[in-house]
């Protein structure tokens, strides 16, 4: 009779040996990839382990091991805070407006650019439309503040010439969302169209030729060939958008908002920045951030699964 306990170590030994052999053979490749792995471990994974402080009363002097555990205190504090509803509403609304108004623009632009027959004209427009993408957020917000300034800003000067009353746009809560969305469209519509143009160029030209024979006009071609042809790309982009439904480009908001527009402009990310970094409430800030990442993670998985079932398009 064979003693089982003796077999397993041998198998294990062989497996380790085989593993060592591959490692030796691929030594050069592993050495190349090592700095990258280390970077991800330190700068992407270490902060994930740092999330434990969301459940602690963290103090930098006591460290991760010395700080006391407080369970879900910070989460409860956040859920019961007077700002909770406002933060969720602002974040969701900006994202929903983004999907409703900003998301379709690059698609429409790509569809229309794709139909332009003069390649020079098309190229010129493309080159110009990508330009705003390369302007920094600081400059974009700087343009907004200066164009809209009540003190000599071009927009208010024009309003004045037309006999209207000057509007102090940047401190009006009702103007924050439109300005955020419109400036976003200005900056990213052209650049965003590249991906759809790439998808459009992959559509079989025979489909268009056949449709002409069948008497389809341009509008019908758009609707029945071009749009279905790029639908997988649209869905992928939509999933990725839904994946950060609870976070929004806060670098721009931090530049744009001020105490008088918090009502519409303050989102979860900016709140985390103010409480977690500026006020140094590390544990509370981490807890709010974790709440946000967790919801986002659930959203991207759900969106991916729904899309996989309905349209057979998925991220993974």
């Amino acid at each position, binding site marked *: 009779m064979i003693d089982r306990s003796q077999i397993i170590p041998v198998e294990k030994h062989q497996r380790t040996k085989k593993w060592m052999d*591959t490692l030796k053979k691929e030594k*050069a490749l592993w050495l190349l990839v090592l700095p990258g792995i280390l*970077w991800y471990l330190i700068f992407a994974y270490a902060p994930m382990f740092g999330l434990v402080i969301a459940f602690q009363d963290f103090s930098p002097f006591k460290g991760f091991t010395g700080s006391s555990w407080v369970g879900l205190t910070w989460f409860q504090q956040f859920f019961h805070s007077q700002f909770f509803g406002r933060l969720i509403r602002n974040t969701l609304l900006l994202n929903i407006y983004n999907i409703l108004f900003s998301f379709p623009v690059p698609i429409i632009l790509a569809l229309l650019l794709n139909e332009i027959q003069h390649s020079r004209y098309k190229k010129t427009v493309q080159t110009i439309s990508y330009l705003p993408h390369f302007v920094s957020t600081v400059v974009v917000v700087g*343009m907004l503040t200066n164009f809209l300034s009540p003190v*000599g800003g071009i927009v208010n000067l024009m309003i004045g010439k037309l006999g209207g009353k000057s509007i102090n746009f940047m401190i009006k809560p009702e103007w924050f969302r439109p300005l955020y969305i419109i400036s976003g469209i200005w900056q990213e519509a052209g650049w965003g169209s590249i991906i759809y143009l790439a998808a459009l160029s992959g559509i079989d030209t025979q489909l268009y*030729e056949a449709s002409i024979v069948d008497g389809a006009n341009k509008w019908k071609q758009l609707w029945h060939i071009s749009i279905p042809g790029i639908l997988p790309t649209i869905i992928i982009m939509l999933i990725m958008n839904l994946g950060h439904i609870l976070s929004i480009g806060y670098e721009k908001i931090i530049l744009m908002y001020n105490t008088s527009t918090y009502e519409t402009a303050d989102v979860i990310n900016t709140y985390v920045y103010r409480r977690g*970094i500026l006020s140094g409430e590390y544990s509370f800030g981490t807890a709010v951030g974790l709440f946000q990442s967790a919801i986002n993670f659930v959203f991207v998985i759900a969106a991916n699964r729904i899309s996989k079932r309905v349209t057979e398009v998925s991220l993974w």
Partner: protein
Amino acid sequence: MVGGIEMVKNRLSIGDRIFYIIDYIFVALVAIVALYPFIFIFSASVSNSAALGRGEIWLFPKGFNTDAYEIVLEEKAVWSSYGNTIWYVVVGTTMNMVLTTFTAYPLSRKNFSGRNKVMMFIAFTMFFSGGLVPSYLLVKKLGLIDTRWAIVIPAGISTWNLIIMRTFFESIPQSLHEAATIDGCSELRIMTRIFLPLSLPVLSVMVLFYAVAHWNSYFSALVYLNDQKLYPLQMHLRKILIQYNQNEMLQELTQGRDVVGQSVRYATIIVSTVPILLIYPFLQKYFVKGVMVGAIKG
């Protein structure tokens, strides 16, 4: 579609004709809207400031002068922050390129056993992260706060760029690799002598993406730097373009006091943005390719 054009050209239906008219006009409008702010800012920066204050500038400059530029270029903070930004761009981009190519190359090798596992390990970070506060505490713990390294090291790799580069490497024929291995080339040699020279388009796109990101970044400086001597250009811009203005608006200052300030601000925008706008047209054909490579297999 291209094949069909000649066929249809002579007998465009009215519907199609309307389509093309709307299409060309719409596309032209897009170009105008994208370009107009730049034209206005340039014209405003070289115009007579009184004319600017009266709202007479809307397209072409009036009363041409370069006073605003003289004021901008005399300011020390502009030069020192410009210098800092150049440091961040050069050091940061170099580090990005080394890390990204070194990591992307093995991940593109079909015979690399760790390929899928390492890729999963990396891709996961696109969907979940520790967030702002833990990242800040890490940088603090590493003693990087108020050093230049806080700006470049945490921004070491962009996963998106890594995937673009890996996809490009994958498109290079495997047979080249096999032939080189038979000739006794080491992996490092194969990468630097065969793969990298064949990847020049995607490499230049990566350099552009990384360099522009460093040039435009302000947030890491806002969070990690207190020492103004280390501030990049964007932090300086934030001060003069946004903060001064917000203070004025909150105080609701009287009309007309800010006339000189406006043209100086516009001149500052031009000075800070021109380097990017200058290199941009030369690299444009490459980066479109770069985005497409990423799009095919994201």
